[in-house]
Structure formats: structure tokens, C-alpha cells
């Protein structure tokens, strides 16, 4: 098939026969007349986004990793949406209202009417029921865990559905604003094209073509219910793993929007390229296995927290705009009103040494930490290593990758620490459950202090919102006091864009970059 096209240049080989060696030297540099343009043509408005992670699978229940969300959310709608402007507050998606019953054992959803799938099938309550049942049962589902509390789904009428729960689950709406809330056309459930071609959504864009791990081309869905969304006729999702390539693509016009890194800000400045830089709710932290003989001791964990000079580490590696912090809850106005925690672990190596001595480690101790091979993680790890060695903790760094560490850290538990990042969902309670719930797969060893475990359980099953909030806040503070983890801080995210092509670019605090509402400024009609 395509093989023949590619082997065509090979046909230049017959020069061997004539052996006229001297002329071809002029061949090389004659073709530079026209400038490189976008691969697409035909007078359409196109948004080309250089993405840093590859998307391999478009079946919402099978796609792994948060990195595919930016693509999934373009073509599939969620029951509940996240407001990008307001610090991750929930807003209506396919469901316009959601209310818990007084006993907390059921959640009623009012559905938007006049929503159709890309093939024209109407979206209704039966669809929601079928989707939840599929997510819970389909082989290899990674959304089943998110919907565990749902016992049954009851269709009241075509636009009302009630989720019956086995126990109160305050987090359910927040989880319905992530992958678990994505609605698929039931006719696509068993179609391999769901995963391979991304069919079966209601979103503002339809998938025109998808090549796993390479690129996705989306076209506008004209009958989309929200006229604000889907301003471009086409969106091209280009996978570029190398950050230099993403920057070069943006600067030389092969991309209009690119995920970039803090270290590239100087180049963006000097080349007059538009960019946004800001912290998000995503934080860098040392994930601890608290069943490790040394890390079991709260004094050792507190000592590590005291021994780290967060301000210096964050500002040197992630720039002045980044924020040093020792809390899993970002400062500012998220979820439960203004949060501005006092720093609990002010840099104090002396105190760290005392705590270690109390715990019986006056002669020092060795801890192995898994580190991703990307440059910023390496620099951060080396900084932490140097600071810990001051107090007698010898941090041994072991290399890993985002695809590898899970096996090493969660399953084999080959090292008790992992320098990682966490990208929170729309509620801090999700963070608490994933990182600290005693039964969570992503809490290796499962050794959580009783204060934290009880507060999480309380928040999960609270009957009303204020009770849940109080319990969540309590859990967040307990995590800090018991030094369940070592948060370093909140780094900056950088997005570069072409300000003549695309408008309303924002760095979302929660979740992936939202391409649905970007404005077409009408200059990219190639």
C-alpha cells in the first residue's frame, strides 16, 4: 500500500548504472523556494496543537492516563463538566442538574435535551444507564473503580436518571466530570472503531482520522448543542514527544498551540512568541511507601519535610512564578473557599537532625527514590538529594519512566519513595483517596495514619456537603501533620501559541488543556 510511495526515492538508485557522479551535487539546495505550510489545505480554519503525550486509544473506558483526556474531551461529552475559569468548579455538561437524596444513597441527574450523537442518535436516560453499566463491566475498564459505589441505574423518564448507591459517595459528581462521565453511543460499545477511530461521541468535534500514537484530526460537529464550542473547522492533534520540536513547530508555523516547558520561557521571550505561564493545581511531591521500616516512623517523614528548602528548589528549577508548598491543597480559592496554609515545615535542617536522632538514625540512613528521567525531575531529585545529605539522609536515586514506575513502586515496591507529580481532579477528596486511602492501589503498603484514614472515610460517606468539606479539610491537614508525604511545590505550566490564529487560550487549574472553547481568529485558513 503506502510502501510503494516511500520506496520511490529509492528509484534514484539507477545512477549506479550510469555512474555519472559529478552532477548531483547541485541537486540538494534548489527546492527551498516555497515556505513550509500546514499539511492540510482547502481554505478551512485549522487549529494545530502540538501535544506532549501520545494518545493510543480513544475508547473512554480503556484509554489509560490523564494525557488522553485533552483529546477525548473534544469528541466525547461528560455528564458533568469542569469550569475552566473558576478554579475547577463543576458545571453542567450533558447533565444540567445533579442532586443527592437526603440519605445520600441516590443521585438524580436531569439530562440536557436535544443532544445527539454524531450519527444522529438522540442522547437520553437509557444511554446513561447503558454507559454506566458498560464502564462497570467492560473487560479492561479503568473507569470501573470510579463508579464502584453505583449499585443500579434507574431510568425515570427520557431526561431523568437516578443512580442508586451502595453507600453515600460525595465524590461521585466530581468523578463524573472525568473519564467515568464520558458518554458513548451504545451502538459503538462493541465496535472496534470506538477505540481505533473514536466514533460514538456527542462532542463539539468528530474524529476524522486517528493514528494511534501519531496524530488525530478532528472536524467540527455542526449540530453541537453549545454554539460557543467548536470554533475551528478542524483541529489537528499532533504528537511531538520532544519539547524542542514542539517549540520549533510553533515558531516556524507548523503548530498554533504547543505544550511547552518552563526552561523554554527565555526563548519564547526573546523570539516574541505568545505564551502563558502559570501554576496549576498539579504539584511535585515525594510519594512515600510508609510501610518501609524507616518511613513508618512519623519523625523520619517529618525530618525529611524539614530538611528540604522548597523555596530554593522551586525557584531555581521552575522559575520565580512557581510556588513552594508543603500541602497537597493548593493555596487560593479552590473547592472550599480561600485556603492559605501556614507553612508547617519551614526549612530547618537542625530540627530535621534532631528528629532523626530521636528516631534512632543519628548515624544517618539510606533511602532509595525512583526518579523519572526527564530533565526537570532529575534536577529536582539532585537538589533534594543534596539537601537531605546535609542532615545525614543518603538518598539513592534510581531511574524510571512514567510507564515503568507503577510496576516498580506500587506492585513490586522495589523502592520506598518516588519523586512524582500529581494532577488533581475536580475535588481534593479525589487526591486524598488516590494517594492516602489505605486500600488504594496507588498507596503502596497501605500504611496510612488513622487520623488521615478516618477523615477520608468520613468525607467519602458524609451526608451533606458541609460535613464532607469539614472532613476533607481535616484530612488535608492531617496529611500534613503526620507527614504522610513530602510535597515540594507547584511548578509553572507553559503554553505557547500563535496569537493571530487562536484566542481565549487558558491554562486550566484542573484537568487537561481545554481546546473546545478556543476562539478562531480567522487567520489560519491554509
Amino acid at each position, binding site marked *: 500500500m*503506502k*510502501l510503494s*510511495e*516511500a*520506496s*520511490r*526515492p*529509492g528509484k*534514484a*538508485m539507477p545512477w*549506479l548504472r550510469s*555512474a555519472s*557522479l559529478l552532477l*548531483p*551535487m547541485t541537486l*540538494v539546495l534548489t527546492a*527551498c523556494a*516555497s515556505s*513550509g*505550510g500546514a*499539511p492540510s489545505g482547502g481554505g478551512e480554519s485549522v487549529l494545530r496543537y502540538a501535544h506532549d503525550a501520545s494518545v*493510543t*486509544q480513544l475508547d473512554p473506558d*480503556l484509554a*489509560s492516563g490523564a494525557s488522553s483526556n485533552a483529546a477525548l474531551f473534544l469528541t466525547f461529552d461528560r455528564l458533568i463538566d469542569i469550569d475552566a475559569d473558576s478554579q475547577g468548579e463543576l458545571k453542567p455538561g450533558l447533565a444540567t442538574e445533579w442532586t443527592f437524596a437526603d440519605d445520600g444513597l441516590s443521585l438524580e441527574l436531569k439530562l440536557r435535551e436535544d443532544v445527539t450523537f454524531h450519527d444522529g442518535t438522540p442522547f437520553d436516560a437509557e444511554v446513561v444507564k447503558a454507559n454506566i453499566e458498560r464502564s462497570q463491566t467492560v473487560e*479492561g475498564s*479503568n*473507569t470501573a*473503580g*470510579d463508579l464502584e459505589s453505583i449499585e443500579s441505574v434507574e431510568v425515570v423518564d427520557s431526561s431523568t436518571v437516578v443512580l442508586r448507591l451502595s453507600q453515600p459517595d460525595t465524590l461521585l459528581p466530581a468523578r463524573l466530570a472525568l*473519564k467515568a462521565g464520558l458518554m458513548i453511543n451504545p451502538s459503538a460499545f462493541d465496535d472496534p472503531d470506538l*477505540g*481505533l477511530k473514536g466514533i460514538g461521541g456527542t462532542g463539539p468535534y468528530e474524529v476524522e482520522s486517528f*493514528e*494511534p*500514537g*501519531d496524530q488525530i484530526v478532528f472536524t467540527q460537529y455542526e449540530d453541537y448543542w453549545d454554539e460557543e464550542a467548536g470554533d475551528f473547522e478542524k483541529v489537528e492533534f*499532533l*504528537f511531538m514527544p*520532544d519539547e*524542542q*520540536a514542539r517549540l*520549533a*513547530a510553533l*515558531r*516556524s508555523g*507548523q503548530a498554533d498551540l504547543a505544550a511547552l516547558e518552563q526552561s523554554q520561557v527565555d526563548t519564547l521571550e526573546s*523570539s516574541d512568541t505568545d505564551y502563558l505561564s502559570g501554576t496549576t493545581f498539579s504539584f511535585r511531591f515525594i510519594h512515600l511507601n510508609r510501610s518501609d521500616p524507616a518511613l513508618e516512623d512519623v519523625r523520619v517523614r517529618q525530618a525529611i519535610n524539614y530538611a528540604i528548602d522548597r523555596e530554593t528548589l522551586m525557584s531555581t528549577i521552575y522559575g520565580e512564578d512557581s510556588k513552594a508548598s508543603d500541602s497537597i491543597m493548593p493555596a487560593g480559592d479552590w473547592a472550599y473557599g480561600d485556603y492559605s496554609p501556614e507553612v508547617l515545615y519551614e526549612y530547618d535542617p537542625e530540627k530535621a537532625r534532631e528528629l532523626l536522632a530521636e528516631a534512632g538514625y543519628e548515624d544517618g540512613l539510606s533511602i532509595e527514590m525512583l526518579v523519572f528521567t526527564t530533565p526537570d525531575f532529575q534536577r529536582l531529585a539532585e537538589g533534594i538529594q543534596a539537601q537531605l545529605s546535609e542532615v545525614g539522609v543518603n538518598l539513592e536515586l534510581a531511574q524510571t*519512566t*512514567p*510507564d*515503568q514506575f*507503577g*510496576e*516498580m513502586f506500587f*506492585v*513490586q515496591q522495589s523502592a520506598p519513595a518516588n519523586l512524582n507529580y500529581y494532577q488533581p481532579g475536580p475535588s481534593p477528596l479525589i487526591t486524598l*483517596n*488516590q494517594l492516602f486511602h489505605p486500600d488504594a*492501589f496507588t498507596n503502596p503498603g497501605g500504611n496510612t495514619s488513622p487520623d488521615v484514614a478516618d477523615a477520608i472515610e468520613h468525607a467519602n460517606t458524609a451526608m451533606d456537603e458541609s460535613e464532607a468539606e469539614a472532613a476533607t479539610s481535616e484530612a488535608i491537614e492531617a496529611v500534613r501533620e503526620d507527614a504522610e508525604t513530602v510535597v515540594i511545590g507547584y511548578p509553572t505550566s507553559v503554553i505557547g501559541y500563535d496569537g493571530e490564529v487562536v484566542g481565549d487560550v487558558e491554562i486550566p487549574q484542573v484537568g487537561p488543556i481545554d481546546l473546545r472553547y478556543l476562539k478562531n481568529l480567522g487567520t489560519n485558513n491554509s
Partner: protein
Amino acid sequence: MAVRVAAEAESRAGSRGSGAARTRRFSRAVLKRLLSGLLTLVLVSVITFALLLLVPGDPAVSLAGENPTAEQVEQIRTSLGLDKPVVVQYLTWAGSVLTGDFGTSLYSQQPVIEAIAHRLPVTLSLIAGALVLALVVGGGLGLWGGLKYRDKSGAIIAAAGTFAMSIPPFVLGMLLVLVFALTYPVLPATGYVPFSSSPTQWFLCLVLPWVALAGSPIAAVAGQARSAVIGVLGQDYIRTARAKGLSRKSIITRHVARNSLMQVVTVLGGEIAVMIGATVVVEQLFALNGLGSLIVESVFRRDFPVVQGVVLTAAAFVVVVNMVIDLSYSWLNPKVRTA
């Protein structure tokens, strides 16, 4: 090299011995190489499998999503057959390969053959173009340098070659992007357009990657060609040819170029293997999603069927190229044919 080579080369078209016997000898040689090629592929697949086992990482864990349960991970492991003994896993895979089924990606569920078919044109375009550049530019420079080896220009070419050979492709690539895509934006910095959509765009998108990939092979070919030419020029048959009154042009094309080619082709065989390795870097640099980027991702994810598929494709490519090169010796030098 024997004095008689040129004479034999000239009498190449004339038959030596019976045609049928020669064809039989030739096909036996091809068969032998095919068999050893197959053996190589089997060894490569076993080694790849063993290497993947040595490094930790379990696809089931990454596949289970952000909020997995231990049971979910176990279920995925079972459904992928990752819970079976290693030998069983390998034999199951090898068995399906024999029936032409290379399996599907653990992540995308896409058949491995399709993934490779999609990526192969990118990488083949890249390698073929770089190969042409290496042969044409490298060969041309080498011939020129060899003919002028007593002049200053010859010495300059030799020195420039040594310098060029020591520039790694990623450095050359970044320089090219900086100059020709960012400072003087005449060529795109990234991307790939299939030949079928637009031959012009295809060409323009690949110019910089070709040069980046071919830089070091050009120097290697030029160096080899230069010394081969110098060697041939010293041969008696060149003096004879001159004495016969042959024109300079026909001495160069019929004797010097042709007889130097064998050494150049030998170098090229090695360079192709190096180039396949370098495509991994060049593809990342220019955001070309070919086999190189496919294998990088798949190795990190332990997407075993894809890794095996790509490695086998690359290995088969190298085996075939080397076979062609071996066989081309007999075309270039009839003495080898009889051996």
C-alpha cells in the same frame, strides 16, 4: 586487487561457463543467505524478548488507569496473557507470527502490522533519502577528493570529512532547524506529509531530516570513496588505459568509479544499520512519527508485540540490505561471483 579485474569487468557481459550453472550457483548463494537471514531474525526476536524481561515495568499497571484496584490490574494481566510463564508467552507469540499474525498493540488494540504499515513510509522515506544523499554527495565528494588528492582542495575535503563525521545527528539537526526553519524560515521544522498527498510537501518536510541523518554517512562514504579512488588510480590498468589513449572521462566513469564502488558499497552496508539507529533521534527532533518514535514509546510502555514487530522489521531490513550488498559484489566484481 588483481590486475585482471578491469579486463574481467569489461568482459562481464560475455558469458563465462554455462549460463544455467551460473544461475544455479547464484540461487544457491541467495538461498544460503536467506536461511542465515532467517536464523538472524529468530535470534533477534529471542534477544529482544529477553531484554524486555530484564527491565522492570508491567503494561497491566499503566493500562489500569489513574485509579486502579489490584483486582483490575490482575484481570488485565490475565486477559493479556502476561501471567503465563515467559517461555509460553514467547512461543505463543512466535506461533502466531508463523501464521502471519503479529498480534495487536497492548495499548491501542491496533494490529501491529497496521501500526508498522503506517509508520514504515515515514522511516523508509527518511532512510532512502539519506542513503541517496550519502551515496551521491559522499560518493561525488570522495571521487573528487581522490582525483585531486595531491591538490589543496582534496586535502580540504579530507579534513572536512573527518570533522563532519564527528557531528552527531541531533546536533546537526538542531543547527539545521535553527538556521533553515527559525532564522531563515525556508523549510518546515517539523512534520511529515505523505508522498501521495503532496510530493512537494513531502520533499520539503524531509529535506532537513535527510541532511541531519546523512551528515555523518556522507563523510564516511566520502572518506572511503576517496581512499578507494586513490588506490585504483595507482593500479597498472589505469596506466594501461591512459596509454591506450582512453579519454579522461571514460577512464573515470568506466574504471575508477566502478572499481571504487565496491568499497563504497561495503561502507554503506554498515552505515545503513547506523542510520536506522539514528532515525530514533532524528524522528524525535523533527517530530516525524515513524518506526523510531514507535519503538521508543513501545519500549517504555512494554508494548511487547509492537516492540517485537518493529525490531523484526528493522532487522529484516538490515538483513535484506546486506544480502543485496553481498550480491551486488558479484555484479561489481565478477571474481567474487565464482568464489
